[in-house]
């Protein structure tokens, strides 16, 4: 198991390198000279040369990549072009906000999905099943931002129960003052994972219930509760895998929802960086999100392996 873990981590290294390369190349993929993005168009030739040297843009590409990587590894992503603040600081603050939102939404989606999917699978073909499946289809097809706006209209504008903007005053804390800001975006974001997990868990449960060993278990006189434990343990690896991937998507994919709710996370940060052509911010954010995605995938893989004895090797 330890060996397997090490091997998996080793496999993740080239992926991480490739991702960094792509992020680095962003500067050069963006149309035009990156200098144009940094300096105003009327900058003098000396300034251009100075800035070019300053940013290391005069060196050959592989050297640039090496230098950039060396900085990045030390947590130095440079400064934002838009506001001159350290990208790393901005990133930490934004990523933690996104993390709060994403984990809340993913957990919510996971719990809802497991309950609905489990019920649908256990009562296949009944009204419960059909209701759960309709919810799942609705969940994955409804546009995020539209649902977000509808929720805002109902709960913020009409009922006035919950705020529609920002993550609350000052630093984040798990108190009602802040949590009330989290509720609407978290619900909005949880709908897709809830739908996907419902669908997956339903399929898995139906499959497990049709297995021969379920007859064996019933034949041993096990009651419903014990049977449920067996079903859950068999379904867990698949359900967790889906949930882990969803968490990965949510970490990076909440640009629309964060923008709708003005939630100061990486999504909003990316959105602003794109419009301001703030390449260091773009680079840093993309890289960090991609790394989180790689790490989550690795984690899911390891958990799944730990849970399923058949996948354990060496």
């Amino acid at each position: 198991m330890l060996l397997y873990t090490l091997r998996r981590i080793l496999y993740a290294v080239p992926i991480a390198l490739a991702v960094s390369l792509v992020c680095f190349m962003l500067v050069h993929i963006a149309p035009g000279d990156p200098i144009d993005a940094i300096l105003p168009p009327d900058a003098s030739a000396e300034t251009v040369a100075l800035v070019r040297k300053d940013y290391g843009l005069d060196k050959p590409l592989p050297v640039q990549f090496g230098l950039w990587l060396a900085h990045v590894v030390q947590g130095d992503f440079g400064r934002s072009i838009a506001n001159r603040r350290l990208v790393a600081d901005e990133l930490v603050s934004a990523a933690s906000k996104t993390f709060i939102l994403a984990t809340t939404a993913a957990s919510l989606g996971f719990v809802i999905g497991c309950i609905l999917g489990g019920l649908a699978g256990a009562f296949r073909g009944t009204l419960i099943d059909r209701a759960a499946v309709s919810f799942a289809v609705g969940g994955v097809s409804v546009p995020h931002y539209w649902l977000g706006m509808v929720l805002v209209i109902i709960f913020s504008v009409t009922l006035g129960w919950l705020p529609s903007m920002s993550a609350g005053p000052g630093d984040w804390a798990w108190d009602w003052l802040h949590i009330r800001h989290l509720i609407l975006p978290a619900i909005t974001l949880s709908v897709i994972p809830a739908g996907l997990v419902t669908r997956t868990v339903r399929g898995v449960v139906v499959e497990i219930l049709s297995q021969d060993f379920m007859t064996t278990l019933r034949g041993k006189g096990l009651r419903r509760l014990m049977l449920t434990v067996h079903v859950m343990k068999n379904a867990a690896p698949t359900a967790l895998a889906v949930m882990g991937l969803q968490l990965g998507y949510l970490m990076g994919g909440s640009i629309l929802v964060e923008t709708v709710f003005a939630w100061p996370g990486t999504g909003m940060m990316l959105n602003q960086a794109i419009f301001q052509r703030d390449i260091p911010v773009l680079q840093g954010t993309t890289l960090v999100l991609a790394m989180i995605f790689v790490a989550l995938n690795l984690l899911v893989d390891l958990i799944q392996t730990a849970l399923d004895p058949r996948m354990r090797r060496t």
Partner: protein
Amino acid sequence: MRDDLLVLARDLRVKFTTGVNAVNGVDFDLRQREVLCILGESGSGKSVTLRALMRLNPPTKTIMSGTLELGGRDVVQASENEMSDLRGPFVSMIFQEPMTALDPVFTIGRQITETILRHENISRRKARRRALELLELVQIPSAKRRLDAYPHELSGGLRQRAMIAIALSCRPKLLLADEPTTALDASVQIQILLLLREIQQELGMGMIFVTHDLGVAGEVADRIAVMYAGRFIEEGPVADLMRQPLHPYAKGLLGATVHEGSRGKRLTTIPGAPPDLRDLPGGCAFAPRCTEAEGACLAHLPELRTPVPDRAARCIHVDDRPAAFGERLAS
């Protein structure tokens, strides 16, 4: 006299909501320590009959009727809770496929102890000790280590032994075995079989055994029942039935050359196809394939006839008088 009766089945029927009439009136008794072998072609309803005894056919898709008592308790009417109390301590089953009949994500030990803990009020440690004893009883080498093994870590033969250990974990009075050796290598088959018979005798269990193998039946059984289209068309003591089958189907099935040493001999195939279980003919279900059939066979279902005490067959050509049977034997 009825105290030692483990199973009493009268006109037991099982129908599926798909329209299949899998069991169409089965009558038999099983006493303590008795071993009954069920023989029959594929699809004749052997597995469904066994599962019906424990009421393990899919609950929402199965309609069961007739009389079925296990140790005097009504299985057809019992609640699901009452049934689950019987499963394990009174009756348990060994399934055909050791590969798929065990939960892949639970250890062997856990699958045994959970059964014990479900039915008996003992500590986890004691249950585990019993699990170890059971693995030793079924002769699994290095049993202690195997307690913590997962099913996929065992070979087919060992897995089937583990399956047997699970079935025995609450010392059932009645053991059902549905082709317990079919999925295994020939050499392993014999070992498992001898083990089963030994344990059956040691623990004094009643056993119902489904097999396709005549040799196995001759080796293990006290009595044999031949099944066709969901009915026992003949039943009797193993030696008599094998030497002198009464029903034309049983004769065909056992072949012309049944003798001692028929181990490993598969049942002979008979020309023609078994009837459609959705739409059974009114009379003898075997008549369309029977060389001795006549008009009367199709008129109505032949009742069970008893030419000699302890033997019965559903065929109009079988005389219902012991004397006549003796004459036929002589001729």
